[in-house]
């Protein structure tokens, strides 16, 4: 966790996070574990499945891709990028969809709903729009169904919906009940995790014109930390009964009456 004193915005409107350990964001981690569970199930039925992991960023991310190799992903790819695209989900979506259209065709694209850095929450929807595929948001579970369908559970306003979705589709993983990914064994790390990561350059995806357009449309002016402080009150009273009375009268009564 970045401490308050390290949350410093530099002249490039960047925050130096090099002092803290990187981790997968919780949505991506859920998405990866769901993918692995789906793969386990499908493999159990002797149906071939091919898993590709794709990330955009610098070499530091290779450690996560190596872990995915150890967890038996078939391909791990990093699209090398040094541009600041934190707040440009259009670029991320363009790269992902172009990769799927032109380089490595996929039946399903599973993404975390938002990254920790940009918090845009748009990439899965934009990918679906570019590919003209359906997109299910707030996905909390994915199960195999038939050869070209999946049983997808997602959160909707006021409830949980389970539906059969025809592939190809984009699934945006939200607040899933499980947010941890399994851990590969040392033996699998040695056996599978040493494979070289495939690297493509972001320039190969013709982003220049789109980057200029996006930057003209949206310019980062400032960054401010959102405070999530909570306030606590210690109720004073001579007896537990007196404290309970104050709690009820001052804090609960009005709320309960509104129910």
């Amino acid at each position: 966790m970045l401490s308050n004193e390290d949350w410093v915005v530099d002249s490039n409107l960047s925050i130096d996070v090099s002092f803290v350990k990187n981790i997968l964001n919780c949505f991506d981690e859920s998405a990866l574990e769901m993918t692995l569970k789906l793969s386990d199930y499908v493999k159990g039925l002797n149906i071939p499945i091919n898993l590709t992991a794709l990330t955009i960023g610098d070499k530091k991310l290779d450690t996560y891709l190596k872990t995915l190799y150890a967890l038996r992903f078939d391909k791990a790819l990093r699209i090398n990028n040094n541009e600041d695209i934190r707040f440009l989900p259009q670029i991320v979506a363009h790269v992902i969809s172009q990769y799927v259209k032109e380089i490595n065709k996929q039946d399903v694209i599973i993404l975390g709903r938002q990254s920790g850095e940009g918090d845009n929450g748009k990439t899965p929807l934009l990918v679906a729009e570019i590919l003209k595929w359906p997109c299910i948001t707030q996905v909390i579970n994915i199960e195999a169904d038939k050869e070209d369908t999946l049983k997808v559970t997602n959160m909707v306003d006021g409830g949980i919906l389970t539906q059969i979705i025809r592939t190809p589709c984009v699934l945006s993983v939200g607040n899933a009940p499980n947010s941890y990914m399994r851990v590969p064994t040392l033996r699998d790390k040695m056996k599978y995790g040493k494979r070289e990561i495939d690297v493509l350059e972001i320039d190969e995806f013709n982003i220049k014109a789109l980057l200029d357009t996006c930057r003209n449309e949206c310019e980062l002016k400032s960054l401010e930390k959102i405070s999530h402080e909570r306030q606590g009150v210690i109720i004073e009273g001579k007896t537990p009964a007196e404290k309970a009375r104050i709690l009820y009268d001052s804090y609960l009564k009005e709320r309960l009456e509104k129910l």
Partner: protein
Amino acid sequence: MPLTREQVVEGLVKILGVEKVITDEQVLKESSIDRFRKYEDICGVYTQPIPAAVVNVESTEEVSVVLKFANENIINVVPRTGHSATEGGLETAVENSIVVDGSGMNRLIKIDTYNMQATAECGVSLEELENKLRKQGYTTGHSPQSKPLAQMGGLVATRSIGQLSTLYGGIEDMVVGIEAVFPNGQISRIKNVPRRAAGPDIRHIIIGNEGALCYITEVTVKIFKYMPENNLFYGYTLENMKTGFEILREVMVEGYKPSVARLYDPEDGAYHFSHFADDKCVLIFVAEGPKAIAEATGRAIEEIVGKYDECKRVDSQLIKRWFDNLNWDPAKVAEERVEIAETQNIGFTTEVSGNWDIINDIYEVCIERIRNEIPDITLIGGHSSHSYINGTNMYFVYYYNLVDITPEEEITKYHYPIQDIIVEETLKAGGSMCHHHGVGKHRTHFIKEEYGSSYHILETLKKAFDPRGIMNMGTILPIKR
């Protein structure tokens, strides 16, 4: 004729009153274990005999009458304060035990800044004591990873050590005086003086007794000036543990006292330092104390490490930030439970010590054997975190996936075999099987080998102070069945 469970509870209620005698089933189940059996706890499967009661004592006199009652009726007593033990020391290995919880004895009796000592009841949390001291410009110098959880009685009972030990020492170097209750109800106080040569140092009968001889009710520890503004942080990456051990040795042998002197291997290091030390060992020092001493220590560290080309210095802020987030608080424990339940991946540690000439061999052989012999291992690594003029410790860290087991098989399939490799290899090399967690209940089968010809001293202590065998049976010494 042993008392029935009901008679034990009835007797305790007569002594303490009904409010201090807890018989809630879930509380009793959770009180039958400590963090050694955290997987069983997460699964809600409790395999140890469930205690008859947990009693919340609030004074030394109450401890005395409870122990006397237990002694007269031969009932096993498990002393407890912060409940953060990791080696089974808090397991109730005998039917109808009484868990005597001293966390309610939480009065901070005195902070004496003239004589530089602080006196606290056994249930005072170290973090609370430390925070109060720091507000006044002082520190205990004791900073174990369990600081947010552990309490003074348990820390002394387990011979705890903190991250700043190279400067301040272990708890045994900090304890000045102590009060403890023995099974016959005898309350013994050892006074607070700078030193004495009036026979053996009897504090050491109590420090580290793990509740197997007596119940610690009050401790007085030294305090020190707190000067964090002078702290200097040093971090280096390097290729080999052997080089790291050589550097640690040189710093110690040359007479320097950094508060922190730690060496991580790449596997353990990856868990903490992957953002700057991929596949490297990491060497860390903190120099503290009065400005001139901290600076002199810092200069010496730079000079000594500077002689080794393979060491590359990293930004001090990386080390400071890591150090700020090292401790285990209740939130981290709760988070760990969720992570274990979801991933079915669990981690433990085993800590040993050895002289400089054997420590690297112990490290290498243990890592090699565990990698090759244990199934489903996901991480095996370690670090040295407490160094001395003649040697250092090795803190092995291991994680494994839980595959095809029932909750109770976790220990027999994975934890015991790993721990036994580490202990066997350490004893074979001439080291000690426990550096700072205590023996608990799961290394007792090695205790005779650990002590060698001095074992009779330990056995005699147990017979002398606990002749009826009621104090935390199965801890330090195995239960004779």
